[in-house]
């Protein structure tokens, strides 16, 4: 019997991701795009483009996750991002006991249970201060590209104190710091540490222990992971292709 391709779509607030797994459990295609407002149209078009060259023998089984999961056409399952990230991360890092997912719109700490199930989770509330969008907005305000963050933080002798817990007020605070002559690297380091404080508090809510695997776009920010590790006393490593973990988890949940 031909086992159909399993396809996971993660229609997130910032990026649209998809991963396809073949009958042998191998990842055979992946895609990452900027999210468009019309999830239905983007999903149909992008999936046709991604799956076209694979010529599947049986219709693929699609599962959708992310904020737009209800609008992805033809999905056989629509797990939440929490379930999807838990399954995806557990598949990639079987030794991990906790997933830290920092996406565009929210941040989640997920304690893994047996079989990759989410045993417990905590999320940021409505405030965006602990999310990828927070970092993205403030870096953009400072005119600093993502790739420059590592070097800048390493070169910063101290972290500027960013006390605000609100994304909007933090931006105002940063403007004030720069106006007062604070060196930009110190401000960037302060930003990263303020984000790490919030993430460490989130992790503390789910009774952590063991290794942490980081997913979502912000997992590419190594100084942030190091700062979280320093606060929690646990190892924190990025998942391979961290932005695709949710889509991978959805694909795993699309069928046996």
């Amino acid at each position, binding site marked *: 019997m031909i086992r159909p391709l399993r396809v996971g779509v993660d229609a997130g607030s910032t990026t649209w991701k998809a991963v396809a797994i073949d009958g042998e459990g191998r990842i055979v295609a992946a895609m990452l795009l900027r999210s468009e407002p019309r999830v239905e149209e983007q999903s149909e078009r992008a999936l046709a483009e991604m799956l076209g060259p694979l010529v599947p023998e049986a219709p693929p089984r699609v599962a959708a996750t992310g*904020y737009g999961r209800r609008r992805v056409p033809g999905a056989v399952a629509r*797990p*939440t*991002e*929490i*379930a999807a990230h838990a399954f995806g991360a557990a598949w990639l890092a079987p030794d991990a006991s906790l997933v830290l997912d920092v996406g565009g719109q*929210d941040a989640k700490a997920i304690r893994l*249970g047996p079989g990759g*199930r*989410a*045993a*417990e*989770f905590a*999320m940021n*509330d*409505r405030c965006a201060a602990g999310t990828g969008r927070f970092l993205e907005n403030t870096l953009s305000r400072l005119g600093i590209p993502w790739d420059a963050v590592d070097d800048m933080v390493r070169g910063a002798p101290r972290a500027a104190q960013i006390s605000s817990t609100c994304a909007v007020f933090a931006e105002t605070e940063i403007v004030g710091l720069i106006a007062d002559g604070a060196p930009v690297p110190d401000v960037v380091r302060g930003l990263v540490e303020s984000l790490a404080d919030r993430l460490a508090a989130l992790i503390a809510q789910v009774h952590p222990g063991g290794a942490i695997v980081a997913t979502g776009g912000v997992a590419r920010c190594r100084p942030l992971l190091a700062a979280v590790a320093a606060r929690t006393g646990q190892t924190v490593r990025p998942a391979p292709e961290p932005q695709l973990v949710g889509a991978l988890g959805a694909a795993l949940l699309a069928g046996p």
Partner: protein
Amino acid sequence: MGLLRRIRHEAEARLVGPAIAGLNAARRLRRLEAKAPRPPLGPPLRNGVRLRAIVERYYFAGRTADGARPVAWVTSGAPVEVLRPLGYYVVYPENHAAVCGAMRTARDLCEAAERAGHSRDLCSYARTDIGALLAGRTPVGRLPKPDLLVCCTNICQTVAGWYRTLARETGARLVFVDTPFLQGDLLPHHTAYVRRQVETLAAEAERVAGRELRMPDLERSLRSAQDAAFLWGECLATARARPAPWVGIEAFFHMAPIVVLRGLDEAQAYYRDLLGELRERSAAGVAGIEGERVRLVWDNLPIWSELRRLGDLLAARRANLVAATYTHAWSECADLFSAGDPFDAIAATYTSVLLNRDLAHRARGLADLARRYGAHGVLFHSDRSCKPYSLGQHGLRDLLAREHGIPGVVVEADHSDPRSVAWEAAAGRIEAFIEGLG
């Protein structure tokens, strides 16, 4: 009270209101019978139609009550049994605000209160009612002007400021019943302190009504309240069956008579019928949610503006709210209604309500509910503008998980103000929690 106004009120309350509510009920019943099933939801309760008729009649009667009979506005946890024998028409601003919340008119009314200077952090029931009063708008037609305001602090301290505002705006006499917060058990001095205030309330209510409170009438009113509370408790207890014979969310609506008609025979009659229907459904194996898979307990007030979406979300996952601390709070103290003489019984009952008890009591109650109803988890509604109910929920959640193995999730929203509800975020948490239960 004018005789003509009395005659008009009696005619409207006893003839016109029931006739209109009856016609509406007949129309709704026909619609209900013609309605296609909505699986996995089981068939709707017949008594749902009757409930709407009762609420319609109640509010209809209120439109002409002032000037015809004494009118009291009271907090939900006020000892209304004292007022019933004196012929009061009783308005429950909290129930009115819940109706506004469910009918999605609360937002405008909250904004009217905010324009008058009330903080957005204030209880959204308070803002809804103050806004309705200031703007002169209500979806129930008209609320009668109060002659007496009765504020019992057993549900929160916010009511103190809220009722002072009502007193200022309406000029009505305000009586407080201050209930000491119980850290531990109810002690004799608590009862004595509250009893004295209930006696003061009775004297003031007699003065305003211009008649004497007769003890046999008060005793009858208490018995009626007790019977209704027991019957309501039995209705709720039918959800211990697997599957539960009704959708738990409906209990938030069906609690209306125990709140607004407590102490009147109509409440008993309603719950007797509802209990009959629920037992019939149980015996016939009718489920609120067909294929019920997940059983949950709800803590705190409901999110009135989102109950339909919450119901759909839960039903799609074959999950049912089999119990709620909020709905059970109206039956838990039923046995105290007969503790001693009427004034002692009232003092004991109204001082012992859920929100007047410490967290240890709430934790025991929650664990007990979850155990008795075979719940898999608890949904904690962290209510943005109801702090007394929401404080301590994270601790309760941890304690239940640690000591009783019952997991829980905290969801942020608001009971009445839709601007404080981020439904997508709340729904995501609830869905993820149910997924995690397996």
